[in-house]
């Protein structure tokens, strides 16, 4: 598994990716998704394996990096670290920031490594299953992936579905791939090749975040001093080993589900840690179990989310959607054939994720104090620089100024979407899955000779449709239950 990594170039890429990921994770508003989107155009100069290793190491380290800011300034560096704030910051306020970060580092590493093991075992199994899939099954699977968007984050399920449908709609811009008929091009030649992933991803994540930051300039962070990160004590290990293992399992499972990711995983990991704890009353006041539960789960989701991404080409989270974009622009088609034809490529990715988890443990343990200082870079200097990189990166891909306009358009659109409660993640996932959904639907209709009911005669497709129905209904029931509880309070 590690053999493909024994090259100085790949190790350098891995080292850079881990450090860069940590920096991104530490900076509130950036994170591995935005950072991955920013670095995507630069990966074009790398070979496919180096490019994906760079993106995956950013993913692993960035997910952990969010915990540093969560503990020290009570602001999650990434959304996945939101649950870490609940106990990390109170513990830091008690003068135990080093202990809180030590627990976050250890549980993140264990969660991350656990999920890589899950990835190594389950991705090939899932890929083998995918051999049974024809066009109707892929269509049903893509629909399942899209309906899972309904339960992303804490937003409204219907708003998420609208955003997902909008993402698919963007994928229809340009020449129809079956008939070469122009759609939504309005006479603009550049649009006939369609709207690229990168302008949309950079716009929705980086530029919209820049606009969001422009509304938060009066925000003041209260920083807790950190002397050094401390390894958890024997007592802490005794208290938390079950929580870490449980959350690693939960995180990996949630990660495998299409479209779910670290944010959902960490919230469930945290609440389950509280439910099983002997001292639930300590939660929210600086419980190490709370930190362990959230951090093990969000890092375990990284490997889990890579399972459907690599085995089926269905992104498991927002960042894996960016990684999937990276695979596509490098001409790598995820799916069962990838496992058969390029096993060394896959094992390179698995090995890189494993090493990235070890590297961020070392960097986190010895460099958390330094990384925490990165948050001192003021937004008024940081964001104009990010803008310059975003513009040049977007332009560089096809050397088209139209791409830069598209990026700015999606930046403004993304800002307003977020302001009014629409997540931007479904747009990206919809854009990525759009061609798959339309292509498989149209080919299935040809196979079925126009008889839509034939979908129900395919057991795998039928199973996915039933799962899709559950995925649609479940968030509605959940939000009703939450509302009922809220009203009772």
């Amino acid at each position, binding site marked *: 598994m590690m053999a493909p990594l024994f090259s100085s170039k790949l190790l350098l890429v891995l080292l850079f990716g881990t450090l860069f990921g940590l920096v991104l994770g530490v900076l509130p508003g950036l994170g591995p998704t935005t950072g991955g989107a920013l670095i995507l155009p630069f990966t074009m100069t790398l070979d496919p394996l180096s490019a994906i290793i760079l993106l995956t190491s950013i993913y692993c380290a960035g997910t952990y990096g969010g915990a540093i800011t969560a503990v020290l300034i009570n602001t999650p560096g990434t959304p996945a670290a939101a649950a870490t704030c609940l106990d990390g910051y109170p513990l830091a306020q008690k003068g135990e920031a080093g202990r809180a970060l030590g627990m976050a580092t250890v549980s993140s590493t264990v969660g991350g490594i656990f999920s890589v093991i899950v990835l190594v075992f389950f991705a090939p199994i899932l890929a083998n299953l995918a051999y049974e899939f024809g066009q109707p099954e892929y269509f049903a699977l893509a629909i399942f992936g899209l309906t899972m968007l309904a339960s992303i984050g804490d937003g409204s399920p219907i708003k998420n579905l609208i955003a997902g449908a*909008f993402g698919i709609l963007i994928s229809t811009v340009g020449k129809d791939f079956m008939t070469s008929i122009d*759609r939504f091009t309005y006479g603009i030649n550049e649009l006939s090749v369609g709207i690229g992933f990168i302008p949309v991803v950079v716009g929705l994540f980086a530029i919209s975040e820049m606009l969001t930051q422009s509304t938060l*300039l009066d925000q003041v962070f209260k920083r807790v001093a950190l002397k050094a990160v401390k390894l958890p004590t024997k007592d802490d290990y005794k208290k938390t080993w079950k929580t870490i293992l449980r959350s690693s399992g939960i995180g990996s499972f949630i990660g495998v589900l299409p479209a779910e990711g670290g944010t959902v995983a960490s919230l469930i990991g945290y609440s389950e840690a509280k439910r099983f704890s002997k001292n639930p009353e300590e939660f929210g006041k600086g419980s190490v179990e709370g930190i362990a539960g959230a951090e093990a789960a969000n890092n375990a989701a990284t490997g889990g989310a890579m399972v459907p991404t690599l085995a089926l080409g269905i992104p498991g989270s927002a960042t894996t959607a960016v990684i999937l974009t990276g695979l596509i622009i490098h001409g790598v088609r995820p799916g069962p054939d990838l496992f058969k034809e390029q096993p060394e490529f896959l094992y390179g990715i698995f090995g890189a994720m494993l090493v990235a988890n070890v590297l961020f443990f070392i960097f986190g343990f010895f460099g958390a104090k330094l990384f925490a200082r990165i948050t001192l870079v003021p937004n008024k*200097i940081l964001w*104009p620089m990010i803008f*310059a990189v975003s*513009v040049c990166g977007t332009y560089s891909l096809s050397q088209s100024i139209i791409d830069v306009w598209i990026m700015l358009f999606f*930046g403004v659109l993304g800002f307003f979407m977020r302001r009014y409660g629409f997540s931007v993640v479904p747009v990206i996932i919809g854009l990525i899955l759009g061609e798959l959904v339309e292509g498989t639907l149209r080919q299935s209709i*040809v196979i079925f000779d126009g008889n839509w009911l034939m979908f129900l005669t395919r057991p795998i497709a039928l199973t996915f449709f039933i799962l899709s129905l559950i995925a649609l209904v479940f968030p509605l029931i959940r939000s009703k239950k939450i509302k009922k509880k809220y009203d009772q309070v």
Partner: protein
Amino acid sequence: MNNVRDKKRANKSLPFFFRTEFKVFFTIILVSTILLISTFSFDTVPPILNRGIQPATFPKGLLVLMIVLTSIIYYLSFRRPWKKEKNLPKPFFLTIISFVLFIVISKTLDFFLAISVLSIFVSYNWGERRVFYLLLVSIIFPLVVFIFFEMVLGLRFPPGIITNLYYY
């Protein structure tokens, strides 16, 4: 608790066309309808060549779905109005203006000049007053980016009054 909720949802007291949910609903429906109408002008494939569905059918279905789902969220907002968002601060509008400036300058004068102008404009309006940092974001950093893209990645930027000095 109820007082807090009522305060948060003060949006309800406004006339319906001023409410956030109506504005969002109206915008999505308007844009979707315009796009839906435009799908009727897509070319069609002759029946003999048509396998499956026409190219316009899939986008039409998506747009109808978006209109239906938007109507549902608007209907639900009658029972549970959205919370009122804070007014957008001045730096936000200035950042939007800087985007417009960027587009105009990059189209007429120079791509890198546009980046420099945007950087200094944003940095200054976000509160930076130190000359060194303003020079850093507007000249030094864009220059580093230019050199990196030009020399390391071998990219050629669009011609303009500043880039031409380098290219010619």
